[in-house]
């Protein structure tokens, strides 16, 4: 009985956050103001972090807040400030044939939702009692155990990205 109530609360939370994320995402791709689009993106990313909490991925949720909402958004705002002298409404943010994107997105979504609905009709996620908690210890055991080689590769990618970004953005 208690588990059912918890699930109802989780479903309501999912619905609210999902609606917020979809509205935010639509505003990101339709806003005429670059700074406003970046701030709507903050809403979507924070909502994603909340959804990660709903699937019991606490560590990824905290990392999402740190990396995306913290670092990446600051980078985006810096990018906007450094490339745009004026802040405000702009009319030339879209391509001339931007309307082509709408049917592409709708057809893509129709195909994906058809595949998902026929594939996973009403499969339930394991409830809070049945779910095995994936805690930080298990994640670190995985990263520094079976996934050590990808972790090294990732470290090299980050190093190359840092050096590359400095080389690209440096004034000679």
């Amino acid at each position, binding site marked *: 009985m208690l588990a059912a109530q918890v699930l109802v609360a989780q479903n309501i939370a999912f619905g609210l956050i999902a609606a917020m994320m979809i509205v935010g995402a639509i505003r990101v791709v339709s806003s005429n103001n670059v700074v406003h689009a970046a701030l709507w993106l903050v809403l979507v990313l924070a909502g994603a972090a909340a*959804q990660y909490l709903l699937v019991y*991925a606490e560590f990824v949720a905290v990392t999402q807040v740190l990396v995306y909402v913290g670092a990446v958004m600051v980078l985006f705002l810096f990018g906007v400030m450094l490339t745009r002298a004026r802040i405000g409404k702009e009319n030339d943010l879209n391509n001339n044939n931007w309307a082509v994107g709408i049917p592409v997105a709708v057809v893509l979504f129709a195909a994906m939702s058809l595949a998902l609905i026929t594939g*996973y009709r009403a499969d339930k996620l394991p409830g809070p009692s049945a779910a095995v908690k994936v805690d930080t210890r298990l994640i670190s055991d995985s990263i520094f155990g079976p996934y050590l080689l990808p972790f090294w590769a990732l470290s090299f990618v980050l190093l190359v990205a840092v050096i590359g970004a400095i080389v690209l953005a440096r004034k000679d």
Partner: protein
Amino acid sequence: MLINQFLLLGAVLFCIGVYGVIARKNAVMVLMSIELILNAVNLNLLAFAMNMNGEGSADGHVFALYVLAIAAAEVGVGLGLVLLIYRNKRSISLDELSEMKG
């Protein structure tokens, strides 16, 4: 909770991101749309991780963390490129970049 509600939310975000990549001309806005796409992928990975966590593995979480790190690197390099393009052309409209056209 159904697994499909997370997967469909991911699909919606992915399609909005694809629309943004196609429709936007400003390079920074295209990068933001790519972030939407990467977040949709992460949502799918974590939903599948919860769906299959009977064996007590953290594979989906590790994948999501790696996607996050790659996304951060991609934004860093992407914004470096955008700054370079802006410095050379005084504009970041992607339809003015035609040097590599055959």
